[in-house]
């Protein structure tokens, strides 16, 4: 009898092994298959493309962004009529170097996988992608960046639609095979999509999240005596330019971007409090997006309260992607609800039948409506009378926050995140100028203002 009992136990072990096999197979198909399939060594993808015409990609207005031409000898050329403008959104599709960005993640749509071919031998068309990006705004943002290294992300706060997304430096996706060596050796890493993969300290723009925590802890009415420097243990942080504000309330501290006040608040909230607030805004979590993103995170193994003080002003171990900073601003604009960002509005067949549509969805409830209104009020103050006056637009209320993030090596990063109109936000813009060395209010804010104005005037 004892023997049978043990045999049953062995049966259970074997059952678990088989269960593991089946689960692994499903897991592989869900999470690994796509990146494995698009490996350039996989001959299948090119073979399947011999039978199809890869789909085109269009902007929101219907501007052609990518298409495939088939030569008389059957050779295929992937053309990108807008040149470099979308290199960090659409990516490239190369037989030698594989695929990146939308060309990779939406590969099965573009090659029309699952479409049923009614005729044999004919070339089947793939499906087309229609993006949320406005081509005119994308070009305008590109020109605004004017060759400087950095990123611009414009997002619609109520839906999460990406209206424009630019990263510089970039590359020409149509000549990737000739330029490969040169791009790979370039120390400025043109292949890094800074808007989605670049991780930067967000600087004072992160005070948006810290203020949300201030509201939730019921500390909005406190005043501080700001000596200009926050000094505790071996940490010493001074206000921008070393200015001492004296007796100051939180609203003014936000508008003037007092590091002393926000470091003190962060220190008092402690490591757990600061981390919890960051996670409400999606820090330490993967952002599911149409193209690969890096995870914004607080990079401490063990975070102390002093570390928390630094994180509260967007320094220390905190790094975020420009996309994520834009989402943080957009969450406040949208009454505290962070929407899931997306790039692909619809997928259609060659003759225009819609076969896939992205619906807006809430990613995180980052803050309550009253809390968002409180933060918005301070953000309006920043533009009206604080560090971000350069973001003002005639006749329109703009809310925003500047940031000037110190880096371990090199010049400061200049930041601005803002949205307009504050009463019913239609666009939120985040601007990052990498190692620009200027305060965000001077350089980044005017860029964001121009983009918002251009969009609202359209």
């Amino acid at each position, binding site marked *: 009898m004892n*023997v*049978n009992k*043990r*045999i*049953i136990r*062995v*049966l259970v072990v*074997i*059952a678990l*092994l*088989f269960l*593991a*096999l*089946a689960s*692994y*197979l*499903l897991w*592989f*198909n869900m999470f*690994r*298959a*796509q990146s*494995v*399939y698009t*490996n350039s*060594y*996989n*001959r*299948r*993808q090119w*073979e*399947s493309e011999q039978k199809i015409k890869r789909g085109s990609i269009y902007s929101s207005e219907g501007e052609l962004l990518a298409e495939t031409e088939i030569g008389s000898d059957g050779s295929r050329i992937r053309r990108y009529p807008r040149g470099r403008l979308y290199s960090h959104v659409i990516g490239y599709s190369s037989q030698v170097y594989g695929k990146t960005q939308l060309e990779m993640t939406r590969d*099965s749509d573009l090659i029309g*996988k699952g479409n049923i071919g009614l005729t044999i031998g004919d070339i089947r068309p793939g499906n087309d992608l229609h993006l949320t990006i406005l081509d005119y705004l994308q070009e305008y943002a590109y020109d605004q960046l004017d060759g400087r290294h950095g990123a611009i992300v414009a997002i619609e706060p109520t839906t999460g639609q990406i209206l424009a997304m630019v990263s510089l430096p970039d590359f020409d996706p149509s000549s990737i095979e000739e330029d490969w060596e040169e791009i790979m050796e370039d120390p400025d890493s043109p292949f890094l999509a800074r808007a989605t993969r670049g991780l930067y300290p967000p600087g004072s723009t992160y005070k948006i999240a810290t203020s949300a925590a201030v509201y939730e802890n019921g500390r909005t009415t406190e005043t501080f005596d700001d000596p200009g420097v926050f000094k505790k243990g071996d940490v010493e942080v001074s206000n921008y330019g070393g200015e001492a504000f004296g007796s100051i309330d939180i609203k003014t501290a936000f508008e003037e971007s007092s590091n002393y006040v926000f470091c003190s608040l962060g220190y008092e909230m402690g490591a757990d409090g600061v981390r919890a607030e960051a996670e409400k805004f999606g820090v330490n979590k993967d952002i599911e997006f149409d193209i690969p993103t890096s995870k914004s995170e607080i990079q401490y193994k063990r975070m102390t309260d002093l570390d928390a003080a630094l994180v509260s002003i967007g320094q220390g171990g905190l790094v975020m992607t420009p996309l994520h900073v834009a989402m943080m601003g957009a969450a406040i604009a949208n009454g505290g609800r962070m929407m899931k960002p997306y790039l692909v509005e619809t997928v259609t067949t060659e003759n225009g039948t819609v076969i896939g549509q992205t619906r807006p969805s809430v990613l995180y409830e980052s803050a309550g409506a009253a809390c968002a209104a409180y933060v918005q009020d301070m953000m309006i103050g920043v533009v009206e009378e604080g560090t971000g006056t350069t973001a003002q637009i005639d006749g329109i209320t703009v809310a925003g926050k500047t940031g000037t993030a110190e880096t371990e090596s090199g010049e400061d990063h200049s930041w601005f995140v803002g949205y307009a109109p504050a009463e019913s936000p239609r666009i939120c813009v985040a601007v990052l100028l990498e190692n620009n060395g200027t305060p965000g209010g001077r350089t980044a804010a005017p860029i964001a203002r121009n983009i918002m104005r251009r969009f609202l005037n359209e």
Partner: protein
Amino acid sequence: MGIERLKSVSYRKPAYLLILLDALGFLLLFMNKDYNLNVLYTGAAVLALFLTMYTVLVLGRMGDKFIMLMVFMLISIGVLLLCRIDLSYGFRQIVWILVGGAVFFIAYFVYYKVKVWNKLWYLYFIGGTLLFLITLVLGDTVNGSRNWISIGSVISFQPSEITKILFIMCLACYASGSWSKPVFGKVAPKWAALIITYIFVGFLVLQRDWGTILVMFSIYLFMIYVYEPDRKLLVLNIIALVVIGLLGWKFLYHIQVRIANWLDPWSDISNRGYQISQSLFAIASGGYFGSGLGNGSPYYIPLVHSDFIFAAICEEMGVFGGVAVILLFFLIAYRCFKISIMAEDPFDKAVSFGVTVMFALQTFIIIGGVTKMIPLTGITLPFISYGGTSIVISFASLGIIQAISAKTESAESGAAAKERKEERDER
């Protein structure tokens, strides 16, 4: 009572489903292969073999009726894919199934009739050792393992497949307690079994047949887990396994390569990572429902007709198809475990247990290997992979299992008949 219930579960419906799968599958392939009639002949041959064997099995009351159904489901899927990859593999596989079927009945009757199996441990040991020696002297190296023997140029086979069965029979002698006399008056059977295991594993190391080592050693471990009251032996053996594994990893180049390929096949994709990455490409391209029979590109996968056939299944029948195959294997293992639990004779119990564990582990190791869940060690997928030795030995082990099942059933029905007779007498 038990028999009444067994009868009420119909084996007809699954049989019809199997016929339907064959009909649809081969018809689809027929159209896909430019209406090549040979496809239909192959399909008809599979069906004919199934119907003949199954009829004999049912009418002859040869034990469990469900295992054979599931086995032929696997065989059908295998032949279908082999035909799709290369028709000539399909034909030759049919021949092997024919031979395998014959061996199945031979194994069945020989095992059923002969009563002294549990006394012959030394014959199994000597037989196994001889097979190893022959392989070492005459063997050919195929895919890095020196475990093939060719006779003439037509027939080649892997003796280690036979050795596995001999090994199980030998262990079963010890496990069932029928081998109780110490060897040379000194070595107790449990130590003798241990020595035999390590000798066999040693031979396999010389042949670099890591997959078989894994299967054999695991059979041994499971066997002593179930049968050996001395827990120390189990613990010591597991420690030995870990130590030997670590030493192998540290010093044996072949094992290092396998581990490195498992952790990261992509960095050396054109050389050592080639096989596994091609297999993963195939699985990734299939998606949930597969490209459909005949629409994928399984030619890119090396050894697709034998070790890597599961990747082709996933490519053309999808991950769901792959999971279905895994479930079939599990159900077969489940039925076999049931037979082992029901068996009354201790030797029969141990043999069916060993054979079942062998079957299940072999499946797990190769499917896990080609999907990169565990390091890849080349062994065949039972009943699906192309190959004479694999098919014939799988059928032989099935014959043994069926014989044990039939013995139990006839003992039960005998007991039931006796009961009924007693009831009548009382009245």
